[in-house]
């Protein structure tokens, strides 16, 4: 029964590629934003915070449509990127990665922000008295102490990205081999008469990936606590 067909493999591998790229590209932005939100008070902070969380509460189809309007070939950003840099998002796997990155961003940022907030700022002061310039303090004290939270955010973001459906299918459609991820493949399969078995296999793959990611995130969170206590 558990014989995964080439077409299913294609969807699984595409999902993995989309989620890995989405997570890796989102991570530096996530760290920067988490640091900004954890450490700074500025005008418009609550607004920025709300915008980051928007994909969590908006209907995914709305987010997907907004992405299409912005990053589609005729979109303001999409047109510019296609004409000047040759980067095309619409109906490509890169667009799927963009949609997954945006949708998973709130989940990716949150653990990072919490772990930065949990750092004893007096340690950063101590680093400064020892001659470390602010950027060195960040890379030698703040980031290493926040690392388990950063990894937990990456794992959660990855798990969310691999299961993303609504925004992706709206933005880049459901093209086998290009934009058909596990979720959109399941969607197609349950609409075809004999698709149940194949859909079932992909459902099991999804569940295994999601649970694995949650366990990994939990493990990183525990590491974070130990690290902060210096054991």
């Amino acid at each position, binding site marked *: 029964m558990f014989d995964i067909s080439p077409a299913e493999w294609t969807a699984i591998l595409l999902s993995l590629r989309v989620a890995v790229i989405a997570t890796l590209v989102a991570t530096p932005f996530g760290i920067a934003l988490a640091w900004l939100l954890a450490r700074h008070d500025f005008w418009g902070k609550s607004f920025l915070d709300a915008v980051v969380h928007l994909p969590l509460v908006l209907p995914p189809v709305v987010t997907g449509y907004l992405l299409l309007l912005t990053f589609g070939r005729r979109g303001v950003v999409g047109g510019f990127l296609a004409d000047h840099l040759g980067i095309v998002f619409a109906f490509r796997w890169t667009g799927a990665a963009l949609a997954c990155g945006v949708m998973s961003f709130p989940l990716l940022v949150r653990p990072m922000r919490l772990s930065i907030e949990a750092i004893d700022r007096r340690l950063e002061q101590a680093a400064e008295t020892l001659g*470390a310039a602010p950027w060195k303090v960040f890379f030698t004290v703040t980031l290493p*102490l926040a690392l388990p939270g950063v990894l937990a955010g990456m794992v959660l973001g990855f798990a969310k990205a691999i299961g993303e459906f609504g925004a992706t299918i709206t933005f880049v459609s459901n093209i086998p081999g290009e934009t058909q991820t596990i979720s959109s493949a399941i969607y197609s399969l349950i609409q075809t008469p004999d698709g149940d078995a194949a859909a079932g296999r992909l459902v099991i793959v999804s569940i295994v990936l999601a649970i694995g990611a949650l366990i990994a995130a939990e493990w990183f969170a525990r590491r974070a606590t130990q690290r902060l206590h210096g054991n």
Partner: protein
Amino acid sequence: MLRVDVEKKLGEFSLQANFTSEGRVIGLFGASGAGKSSLVNMIAGLLRPDRGTIVIDGETVDDTAAGIHVPTYRRRIGYVFQDARLFPHLSVAQNLDYGRRMNGLAPDPAQHKRIIDLLDIGALQDRRPGKLSGGERQRVALGRALLSKPRLLLLDEPLGALDEERKLEILPYLVRLRDEANVPMVYVSHDVAELRQLATQIVMLKQGRVTSFGGVKVLT
């Protein structure tokens, strides 16, 4: 040499201090809330004075009239906090080496060995800060500050978090540092006995004002 002439308002509390010292160990004495820590934090650059000047070793590090405020990391000071503040993600050896790395100084094995012997911390090198006793932690913090080659060492109640027995264990190390390390110190304490043993000059603070200044005699 250290010259301080500053004013700072912190909420309802106002701090005003003016003294010049050539002493090897300046004892900052006062009850809690007298403004000792705020004063030390201003010397360290962690707190900015509202008005005034601070001169360390001939360099003006604060001058509000001229708009000078040298950031903490460029002041070349060492700071030993009451709560050690060792980096929990680094081993003792890495903690000790941190200041040298951040300042881009060449390794100085002779000084390294001298300070490690002086503080008896050679055996702790591979341990993590979480596995050290309070007294050991404070000795490592002292070593870490000294190994960054500061021109002034600030100690803010370094024995404050230790019980009597531990205090007696650390005090001799501090006396040795005073006599052998060749770094001027500002030593903050509310403990007369401690300052009598260590300080060569006393600045007495009361409710944000310097009430007396002079030799250790002023403590009586």
